[in-house]
Structures are given as structure tokens and as C-alpha cells.
């Protein structure tokens, strides 16, 4: 896990934008089951969630969008949250990724 950027300057109070990089360690990458769990967790937060693989970006609350991102096992993704609960969102999603989606 590594901190990429933390830009707060231009954002209103209480709204944070946090982006961190995680390594996918489960067997199949961000496949259907993993994407389902990711979206379920992401949807618990008010923040907008994005997932980046290199240049490509996906909506962290959309299974279809995450599947189209086609993240194979072993790749790194950036998880970004923007909102009042951004910190909680990113760390919860990070834990999920690092646990290998409970596999």
C-alpha cells in the first residue's frame, strides 16, 4: 500500500479525496465474485469511489464497470474515494483487497 496523493485544498470542508494503491493478491483478479464484494462494500459509503488500472478508470459502485476494467491477479489498482467518508471508504476497500476477498 502506498499513498499516492491527498488533495484537499480545492475541496469544501469535510470533503476529502483520497487515493491509494493496492496489489491484488487473490487467485482470479477482480473477477465477478470479487467485484460483487467490492461494490457491496463501496456502496456502504457516501463517497464516490473510483478504481484505476493504469490509465483506465472504473466506477467502484458498478460491477459492470469493474469487470470491464478486467484486472488480472497480481496487478496493482488505485482506489480513490471522494466525499466526507473517503478515508473510511478507502481503508475498508483496501482491507477487502488485501484479504484476497476472503478467498
Amino acid at each position, binding site marked *: 500500500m502506498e499513498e499516492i496523493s491527498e488533495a484537499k485544498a480545492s475541496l469544501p470542508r469535510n470533503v476529502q479525496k483520497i487515493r491509494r494503491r493496492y496489489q491484488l493478491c487473490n487467485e482470479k483478479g477482480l*473477477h465477478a465474485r470479487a467485484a460483487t464484494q467490492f461494490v457491496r462494500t463501496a456502496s456502504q459509503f457516501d463517497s464516490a469511489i473510483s478504481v484505476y488500472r493504469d490509465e483506465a478508470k472504473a466506477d467502484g459502485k458498478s460491477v459492470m*464497470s469493474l469487470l470491464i476494467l478486467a484486472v488480472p*491477479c497480481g496487478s496493482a489498482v488505485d482506489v480513490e474515494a471522494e466525499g466526507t467518508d473517503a478515508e473510511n471508504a478507502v481503508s475498508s476497500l483496501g482491507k477487502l483487497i488485501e484479504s484476497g476477498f476472503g478467498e
Partner: protein
Amino acid sequence: MPKTQFPHWVNSLNPGLESSLTRKTTASTIIQGIGAAQGIAIGRAIILDRRRVHTPKAHIATNNVQAEIARLQSAVSASVLQLKSLRERVSLVHGGEHIQILEAHELMLQDDMLLTFAEEQIAEQEINAEWALMKALENIKKFFNELDNEYFRERRSDVEFVGEHILRNLTGQHSKTLADLIAQSTKDSILVSHTLSPSETIQLHNSQIVGFCMVAGTKTAHTSIVARSLEIPAVVGAVGLHQNVGVGDQLLLNGDTGEIIVSPSTKQIETHKRRHRRIVRVTRKLKTPMLDEPIVTEDGFEVQLSSNIDLIEEFTEQRALAGQGVGLFRTEYLYLNRSTLPTEEEQFDTYSEVLRRASPYPVTIRTLDLGGDKLDIPTTVRDQLNPFFGLRAIRYCLKEKSLFITQLRALMRASVHGQLRILIPFITDVTEIRQVKILIEEVKETLTKEGIPYNTNVELGAMVEIPSAACISDLLAREVEFFSVGTNDLIQYTLAISRESTDLQYLYHPLHPAMLRMLRWVSDAAHHEGIRLAMCGEMAAEPLYSVVLLGFRFHELSMSPSTIPIVREIVNRTNLLDARELVDGLFQYATHTEVEQAVLQYMWRNFRDLRAVLGGDIDPK
């Protein structure tokens, strides 16, 4: 249910690529598909009308936009509720993978990517909800179609299922066809369909439907996974199903072998049932294989049992069954069903991943084994006259050098990630292998210049699948580090049997005296030059022939992962000297029938407990 599959190997001439054949026997028709979930089902055919939902397309008045959006939303809510109730119903009886697939579909039903797009279409284009939904689905499928990774690309079928579900709720054309079929079905029905969604498959659970078969589908599709998880015998990829099966036809469906028999005879039913019962009994008895334990004969001769693998997804099964590496990784899938050639990077990623996953065991990757006629890619060289004798495999690659060099570069670059063996298909002549070696040297030189690392110890092998290669195996053996014998093609070319001809199947015998002689030449040549001898054809997957192959001194047998435990058991219990004696003895017989009798007698005598899986079409006298 044990995960063991016994390829009925007359019909699996080229598993994967052309797995569907139809053949007529005296009274009944046999349709060959892919066994997706094990077991035998016997019953009457019921046919699911899979005509697409009719989609009315219409423009709407501006003041109806909000109402139309609301109509879409309520169709979505209804769909979510239906899936939820289905999920609750089945989760009472079963946990597992099929539940997770339903959960994914539930989320996809409410996916912003689908709904926001559709709602925007309704508002901006002023069109009805059905039309907007179709547009949204097409938009999403476009993204999936462009994905290189097979697993992720296949998820477009999930998008289709989800879309169809909403569409049925919108139009009121409920999928009552399946529900009705299930309700009206009598005891022991077999469902025949063009496609079946995972959620529909789940509805078969605890119904009168004892098995299903469909035209579409692959072994790794979600529908197949659900069928395995619910233990419903299933055959997928059965082309010719609709042409050969009518409502009420008596069907025998064999999920082990992928066969569907229309109007089976009593004898056929008995044979299949007996065979399956024995398979279940025998595989249950086989001890759970230990990983990383060498596979040796009774007298300590080590044999490598590796897997034939097409998709990276198959690795889990392969590891679970203790395969030692990959004896054949086909690369055709990288090239098929697409309009551009796979890039070097893309191939590098795939090969690296296979090598990493198999490590520390070696992986044999076969270079492209297709002709230009099979590719959707505009190429300069094409030959459509007779693909089996035509410009294909290495012949094609040596003509389309840039395509081949891209593959060789990707392979060499990936070689640092494991133990790579490169296998060249369709070799007929020493010149071909020499040309390949020159190209590989060129690739290595360029890589060195570019400072890109590669493994200097990559082994190069020739596929022995054409009689000329077997004849000159003494000369070929001096050029390569290993041979891999492809029995399917070797039999076909040696005995001049066409794939399509059902009348000639009587000739299709791996133990034909001509085959024995050819195997002896190849084996002698390999051992004389001290190179590795491997087999990746279907013959390696037939437990009946395991001892014969040991007798021919094969170092490696590569097969579909599910067969490994049985072959392993036979290897463990065989003495190499006995095996060689058996093989020597076979050369006295003039006909394949006599040879088969002798082998069968030996196997039945020595492996009484495994008789079920040895096949017993001919009773030993």
C-alpha cells in the same frame, strides 16, 4: 461427485476447437458436446423456446419521459425482487458458487452503467424503455467485446442475462416458458435449449428435470459452474442439438463424456450407466493425490504427468489433481474470434502467467496451430482448399513470419518466469525445424541488443503428428530437445481417416499395428539421441493405454487434468520391465483387434479394481 472425465476419444479428435460432432449409429444419433457437469441422465426431451424477447421500439411524447423512466425503474425493481426470492429459495438448500453468481446479477440489474445510460436515452432521445435498455446493453457489450482476457470477455453473457431479465419484466413476456416447462414436466425430463442462464439453471434444482443440454456454452461459463455445483448432469456446446432432437424424444445424456444419444438402445443405456457407476466407485476409492510428490513406477522409474490446458482458469483444477506442470498449452485461443492479431505484450502477459502458475514445473507452449482460414484477421496468406492438408500451423507461421516472430519474442521474454518448452506443431521436415531455430536465434539476438532478459535454456520440441515426422524421427531427434507425440492427428494421417467420415471410425484405433510401429520408431529415435519423449494426444488420457505408453518409455504424458489421478494410480502400480515386455509382445499380432485384446487382458488382469475406467467394449476371451 468426483471430478473425473473420461474422454470418449473417438469423438474428441480435437477437443476444444472442434468439440462438436454428430454421428449416426445404426438406430440412434449421437451428438457430441462438451461434458460440463458429470453424471448420466436418461429421460424425455423438453425443449425451451429460446426465441429472443420481442423488443418494441417506439418514440414517446416529451411529457411521457418521466413515466417511461418510472416504468424502467419498476421493471428493474421487479427483477431484483425475483432474483432475491430465487436466491433465498436456493440458499436454504445450497450454499456456494451459484449463490454468488446470483448476487452478482442482482447488483448488475441495478448497475449505474446500465440504468443511468438507459434513463438518459429515454430523456434525450425520447424513446421507450425497451429501446433505451437495448441501446444501453449494446453499449456495455461493446466494451466487453474488446477485452483480451477470455474470462472477463465472457462476462458479457452475464450482461445479456441481466438485460433479458429486465426486458421480460418490461414487456410482460415473462420467462414463463421455463417456469411452465418445469411445472409441466413429467418425471425424468431432459431440458434442451439454445442457452440457459445461471439463474435459470438454478431453477432446475429439485425439479423433475434430471439433466440439460444446450447448443451454446463452454466448460468455464457460469451456467456450467452452476450445473456442477448443483450436480445436474449437463452437456454444453452441443451443436446440432435442435436439428436432431424433437419434443418427447428419449435422450441419454452423459455429462462425463459430453455425449447425447437420441433414442438410445437398451444396451447403450446399460453400458453408459454401468460405466458411470464404476467411474464413481473407482474415483472415490483413489487416494487424494499429494502435491509435489514424484510419480514413479513400482520399480522407481519417474514419469511426469502433466496437463493439457487451454485457459488459465483451469489451473485451480490442475493443481488440485496434482498435475506436474503443463504438457500442452494451446495458443490458438489467443488468435480466434477477434479482428486484430494478439500483440506481443498481450501474449507475453498470458505466457508469463502460465509459467508463473505452473512453476516450479515446466510448461510446454505450442506455437500457433491454425491456418489463415480460421482467423478473422485479414492476412496476406490464405488457403481454404483443405485445412487438414493445407497451409496451417508451422507452414503458415513460416509464411507469415512477422506473426510468428511476435509469438516467439513473447515466448522468449516470458521464459524468465518459469521453465519454458516451445513446441512446434505440424512438423514434416527437418528444414522446418532448422528455419524455426534460425528465427529463434534472431529473436534472441535482438532481445540481447535491446537489453531484454530471456532464459537461455528454453527447450525446443517437435510435434510428431504427421507420419513423415515419425519416419524421420531419427533425423529430427538430432535437431530438438524433445518430441511430443500428437496421437489424434498421427492416427488420422497414418490411416487416412477423415474427421467427418463416420463410416471409417472402425479404423480409428490407437493400437493399430501401424501405430505401434510408428511409436517404436519415435521412441527408439528419442532414446538413441537422449531427448525427452512426451505425448499430448488423447491416447495419453486413456488409462487403458497407460502401461503400453510406459512400455514405449515415454517420459511425460500430458492429459486433461481430471484423468491424472487414475493414470497416476496405474503408473504407481506398474513395473517398467513388465510394461516393456507387454509392448514387445504386441508386435506379433497382425490386427488391431488382437492387439487390443492382449492389452485389455493384461490391464484387466493387473488392475481388476480399475476395470470400470479401462473401458470394456471388447471382452477379453
